[in-house]
Each structure stands twice: as C-alpha cells, then as structure tokens.
C-alpha cells in the first residue's frame, strides 16, 4: 500500500535559521500517527511545512501528488485540514459562522447543512452555543470548535497541533476519544503533534520521535511507549 503522505528530505527555514534537517516519514491511509518531541524539536514546523506556511525544501507527496509550489489554501482544498497551535478560532464570529467557514471551500449546500448538524451531534455544547461569539467559549469548547471546523472540510487528512494545550485532563480525554472516533468512523487519517505523550501513544497506532529537526525513532505506538529512552524523556517514568 502506498503512503497517503510521504515526506522526504524535508528542510525548513525561519529566515537564516534552519529548523528541520532532512526529515523523512510517511503516513499510512487511515492511520493515526503521533509526532513526539521536546519543545523546539520541529513538530509545529513540520505541520506548517506540510501546508506551505514556512519556507521549506524537499518533497512532500499527498496521495502521490507533490505539494511543493502549492499555496496554503490550495493544499487545504485537497482535503488536508490543519488545526493550528492556538486553535485559530475566529473569535469575533459566532460558533455557527466558524463551522460555515470550515466548509467555505465546498459548494454542496445541503451537504454542508447536514455536516453542521452532525457536528452538533458530536459536540452538543456547540449546539447550545451556536449563536454565541466564539471568543466567549472556554478553552475546551474552543478546541472542540476547532476540530469541528476542520471536519467541516470533510478532510482526508487532519493535522492537529497540540490539541491538549491548556486543557483540563478530563477534557483532553474527551477530546482524544472524539479524535479516535473520527479516525475510525470517518476514515480520516490523523497526524497529531503532542506534548502529552502518554495519551497520544495510547491512542495512536504509529509514532515518530523528532529531535532537533530529525526523526530519531519510529515504530508502532506500542513499541515506542515501551522504549526506555522514550519513557525517560517523554513519559517521565
């Protein structure tokens, strides 16, 4: 089986500073993969490079087609949803408008209306608050909204940048349960960058460990979580 996303020799730069040094990894269709690493290792940069939000070289192929040279919006339109760090919520707009924006590149009005209802089923709290300004939601609710907004694209691949950031542990559990459900039921391939390694490894099937812009370890999530180095560095026991 060919990889859904195939990344080779990825190098990324912020001005003169090089942040990624020849990163290589791939995602299998339907998988849920986590990218682990310390602060500043290049996790966020990797996600940003996939969507051409940072200057990079190397090849990134999505479903066999190269993404290089494509603008962020055109990459998204191929079916790659990206929930950025800090969630990217349109805080001055209503919850419902945020969902509509998630589907702005689609033109099937009936399908969009159905999907809004489906999101309200997944995330009942969003339904209660659908006319409220998104900036007034709690952090957890905003994260749910960000995930729902990304799903409105009907993505084939979803990139999540630290979805657990700033959330209470119980809410993080809920959120990851929902991500697992999305992965299984909607057949969305997921790549999640996480500081909360324990939870990410519980849920993911594959894991990569990234250090100073290079992949230093890869394998099934189970193997990685049993690895002693990883346990010491990222799991804390």
């Amino acid at each position, binding site marked *: 089986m060919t990889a859904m996303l195939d990344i080779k020799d990825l190098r990324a730069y912020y001005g003169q500073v090089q942040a990624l040094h020849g990163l290589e990894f791939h995602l299998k269709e339907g998988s849920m993969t986590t990218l682990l690493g310390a602060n500043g290792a290049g996790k966020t940069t990797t996600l940003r490079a996939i969507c051409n939000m940072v200057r990079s070289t190397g090849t990134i192929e999505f479903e066999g087609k190269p993404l290089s040279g494509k603008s962020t919006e055109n990459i998204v339109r191929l079916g790659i949803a990206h929930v950025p760090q800090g969630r990217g919520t349109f805080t001055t*707009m209503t919850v419902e408008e945020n969902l509509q924006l998630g589907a*702005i*590149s689609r033109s099937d009005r009936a399908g969009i209306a159905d999907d809004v209802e489906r999101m309200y089923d997944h995330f009942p709290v969003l339904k209660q608050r659908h006319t409220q300004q998104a900036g007034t939601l709690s952090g957890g609710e905003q994260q749910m909204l960000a995930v729902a907004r990304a799903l409105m694209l009907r993505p084939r691949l979803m990139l999540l940048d630290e979805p657990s950031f700033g959330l209470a542990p119980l809410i993080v559990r809920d959120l990851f349960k929902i991500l697992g459900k999305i992965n299984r039921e909607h057949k969305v391939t997921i790549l999640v960058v996480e500081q909360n390694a324990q939870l990410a490894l519980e849920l993911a099937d594959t894991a990569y460990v990234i250090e100073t812009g290079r992949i230093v370890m890869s394998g099934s999530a189970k193997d990685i979580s049993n690895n002693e180095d990883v346990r010491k560095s990222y799991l804390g026991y």
Partner: protein
Amino acid sequence: MELLTNQILAGIATGAIYACMALAVVMIYQAIDHLNFAQGEMAMFSTFMAWQMMQWGVPYWAAFVLTLILSFIGGIAIERLLFKPLAKAPILTNVAGFIALFAIVNSVAGLIWDFTIKQFPSPFGSAPFLGSQLISTHQAGMIGVTIGLLVLLFLFFRFTRIGLAMRAAATLPESARLVGINTSWMIALGWGMASAIGAIAGLLIAPVVFLEPNMMGGVLIYGFAAAVLGGLSSPLGAVVGGFLVGIFENLVGTYIPGAGNELKLPIALALIVIVLVVKPSGLFGHTVIKRV
C-alpha cells in the same frame, strides 16, 4: 429653531457622502491595514467617467451602473498591479504608493478632462423634498442611497458565503487560508468594492461641489474624520461617524462666530486628533472578547 433643523438635515445629507467615503476607507483598512489616501481621487476619476458617458449621450442611471462596474474592476486592477506587490513591504512604502496613486490619478484626470469646473446632474433634482423647505430632493436622495448601501453591505457580509470569507480573511488571514480561503483575492475584492462605494460618493457629491479634479480633497478628509470617529474596524461606525461629522461641521459653521467656512476643515482635522487621543478605537470599534 427652523435654522437648527435645517442645518442638522443639511448636515445629515453631506454626512451621507462622508459616510460613503469613510465606508470605502474602512473596507480597504480592514483588508490591508492601511489608509487609502487616494480613495478620493479614485472617486473623482469614477465621477469623470460617468460625466464622460453622459456627454456621449448615455442616460444617467445606465452611466451610474456602468461607472460602478468599471470602478469595481479598476479597484481590483489597482490592487493587483500596485498594492499586491507591496503587501509585505514596510508601512512607509505603502504610504508612498498611496501618495503616488493620488498624484497620478489627479494629474491624469486633469490631463484628460482639464481643471475647469463642470456641472454634474442630479438624478433626484433640486426641488424641495415633499414640499418641505428644509431639505432638497437631492439631499434626501443622498441620504436614501447611503442608507440603502449600508443595508446592502450588511446583508452581503452577514448572509453570503463570500461576505463571510472576506470577513474571515480580514480578521485572521492565516486561519482563513487554513480553511481554504484565497485571502489575496479577498483583498482585491475589498478594493473593488471600496472603489465602487467611493464612486457612489463621487456621483452624489458632484452636483453639490461641481466636478473638477480636486473636488474630493476636502471630502476625503471628512471621510477620514468619520472613519476615525466611528472606529476604523467598524463599517457601521464609519456611517454613523459620517453623519455625525456632517452635522457637526454644519453646526460649527453656523453657530460659532468667525468659524465660518475657513475653519471647517481644521475642525475636522482637530476631530481626528481628539478621537485618536481620547478613544483610539472610535465609537464603534469593537473590543474583542478573549478567553484562554
């Protein structure tokens, strides 16, 4: 008392023009965070195009619609050719670009149509409005068109998908790109709309101030005052600011002895300074509610 009512109504009528200019300024400010100093000259050029069409025998309303369409396309063209390449340039480079645009449009209009003043017709006539001596039909028309325009814009931004996409691109460009919005074209669209709105202002004020290449200079300063007063982030604020500035200008001119016409413009400029010092976000500038 009648003098007061009369001055207020006349103020609302000219305020309508300031409101349109402020609206155009706010549209572009929202999209690119710069004030378009050439907004008035673009409006003047649009008005000359309409005048030229009418000289060629095109009926008023046909010329009106054609002018709006051409202005819309022209606004997009200016953005694509001049300001898109400057998108990542420093502020001063953009300011220089606006000043250049101002000078170029002004001179080209003078070259084509010369600097002598020209009569410009009003589609509403100048009879007393509904038999009242307080306000003319043209003044009533200016108010009506502005309010109609505001309602249309509100509906556009509130209820259409393209309007939603434009708002998203203006507030959070990066997030907008991440949902697949081509933010660059949204900016161009904003320019087109601002240019068309400015054209409406020009067409409505030309019968009052007469048509000539410098006709919009003062009007644009009042438009800036209105936009700042209402809050540069709020289209509704721009319109309310426009009406307030119009009324204020007329009352000062009438009731403050010695102020007269000479001091009207400095008063508008003073208003800009006062608002920026006392309440920089303006009357309607929104405070974003944030929770983390």
